């Protein structure tokens, strides 16, 4: 029962950590906003209203309107869907690919290990944003491609974590015992290796979502991600650039939304790390 109490202890530590709880609540609230977007958005996020172009925050439009008269609050509410989706899917892609590569490298060693890890080293030799930019520039700008690109550049981190955990677990006596009892590689991997990678993977995935959301917004800002008229935070911000002097709210508010969501994931991720690894507790 050691496993169960390990997670229960971690959960208890997490709940005692005030900033982690704050981060979790922040993410949860924005996730609810994203899911309930059609119910709570006061306006259609895509409907232009040329009479209301660039109107400042008011009772009718709490956060003002953009250059096509679209309600910024409504677009931000729908934008939460886009950012959360992109962040989570990109990390899921990186996690899945990284886990497979890391297990193959760590478990089988030798040539596959060498090959995989050298490829990972090469990927880490690029500043990640730049590599993502290159990939999207090649694949063609779209939100889906931006998500894939961010997923790809995040693979090495996960592969490294899984590989080092695998190496550690593999040398344990209970794995040797399992093998002596005739357990297959698949059984050892799923019963012993993967569960032991879980803690660092969960932490990295949470923090990775924060980075993925930032990078996706950045790619959209450069015109490589979400395309108009999609209500994506980075793209909204970029659309407001031309009107920075006369309508700063078009640029200001979507940025605040990004900060809140990313900060939520960062706080929660830091909290998870402290909770799951008591040795790191400062």
């Amino acid at each position, binding site marked *: 029962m050691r496993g169960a109490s390990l997670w229960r202890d971690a959960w208890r530590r997490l709940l005692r950590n005030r900033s982690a709880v704050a981060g979790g609540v922040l993410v949860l609230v924005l996730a609810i906003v994203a899911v309930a977007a059609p119910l709570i958005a006061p306006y259609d996020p895509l409907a232009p209203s040329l009479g209301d172009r660039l109107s400042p925050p008011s009772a009718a439009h709490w956060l003002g309107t953009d250059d096509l008269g679209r309600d910024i609050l409504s677009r931000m509410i729908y934008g939460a869907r886009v950012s959360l989706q992109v962040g989570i899917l990109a990390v899921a892609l990186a996690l899945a690919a990284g886990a497979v590569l890391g297990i193959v490298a760590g478990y089988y060693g030798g040539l596959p290990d060498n090959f995989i890890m050298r490829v990972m080293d090469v990927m880490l*030799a690029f500043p990640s944003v730049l590599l993502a*930019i290159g990939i999207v520039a090649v694949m063609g700008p779209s939100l889906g491609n931006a998500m894939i690109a961010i997923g790809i550049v995040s693979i090495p981190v996960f592969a490294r974590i899984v590989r080092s955990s695998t190496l550690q677990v593999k040398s344990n006596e209970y794995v040797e015992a399992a093998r002596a009892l005739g357990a297959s590689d698949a059984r050892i991997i799923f019963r012993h290796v993967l569960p032991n990678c879980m803690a660092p993977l969960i932490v990295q995935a949470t923090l990775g979502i924060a980075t993925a959301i930032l990078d996706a917004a950045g790619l959209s800002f*450069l015109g490589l991600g979400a395309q108009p008229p999609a209500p994506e935070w980075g793209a909204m*911000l970029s659309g407001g650039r031309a009107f920075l002097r006369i309508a700063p709210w078009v640029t200001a508010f979507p940025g605040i939304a990004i900060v809140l969501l990313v900060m939520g994931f960062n706080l929660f991720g830091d909290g998870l790390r402290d909770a799951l690894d008591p040795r790191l507790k400062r």
Partner: protein
Amino acid sequence: MSQYVLRRLIATIPILLGVTIVVFMFLHLIPGDPARVILGERATPEALEQVREQLGLNDPLYVQYLRFIGRLLKGDLGRSVVSNTRVSRELAARFPATIELAVAAMIIATLIGVPAGIISATRQYSIFDHASMFVALLGVSMPIFWLGLMLLWLFALELGWFPMSARLNVTIDLRTITGLFVLDSVLTGNLAALKNSLAHLVLPGLALGTIPMAVIARMTRSSMLEVMHQDYIRTAHAKGLAERIVIIKHGLKNALIPVVTVMGLQFGFLLGGAVMTETIFSWPGVGRLAFDAIMNRDFPVLQGSILLISCVFVFINLVVDVTYAYLDPRIHYD
């Protein structure tokens, strides 16, 4: 030590080769015909064939790669599809601007990040500690392009304290020697250019320096906290040394080792962040060049920019590793 440096140098060769393969493949992983991607959908068959011939796309892939490497070793990165100028010349003209911006950002980040981290650690759980760690959290959670635009709006558009874009007012004459305008102004004794180029550096430097500032502050704090709990610090206190001396001579000196590593790594990431920052502030560096190349589908220029920045990144990582080994003699490498 010198053996370690040598080994580490040799280890970067396959990495650099890998980087060139990835950058080379950018053009060839495109679904369909690279020539069509470069010229767009409405290109004539003749134009397509000409570009194919020009880029050597009709040869087998490995021949193309070897040719690419061969040219690269001679410093030839091809020509821009848009302006037909040499990519290498274009990069050489833009690179000093990026270096100057990255160095400015790093200086700002260090000058604020390290002291903030020290004060936070020595007054753990004080209001200052909580406040500065909250600011650091904001720093790592903030998109730099948004921060850049907000700085631009407040300090350039609204208050008019700093210039909006570029590196120097067009009215100011500066003889360029290194291409680093601040350094050139000092070398030529041009006070007006010095003031003006520094003023142009403040906003983009602040925008680009925010993330490293936050990371450095956090790292300094945690490293300092760890060091301050060591026995030799207690001994120093017991000897009756002044608090300031204990913190600076005994604490900081040891705490800075991991901070230096983080600073090196962050400098590398600055180069990636330069694409956004340079785009916002119309800073004529490699990042801006890469952005324009994307917009114009100018793949040779994009390839060159990514290759240059990545090689610098690899080199910086090398320097960081070597510095680390030098600073901490306890570490042995095998």
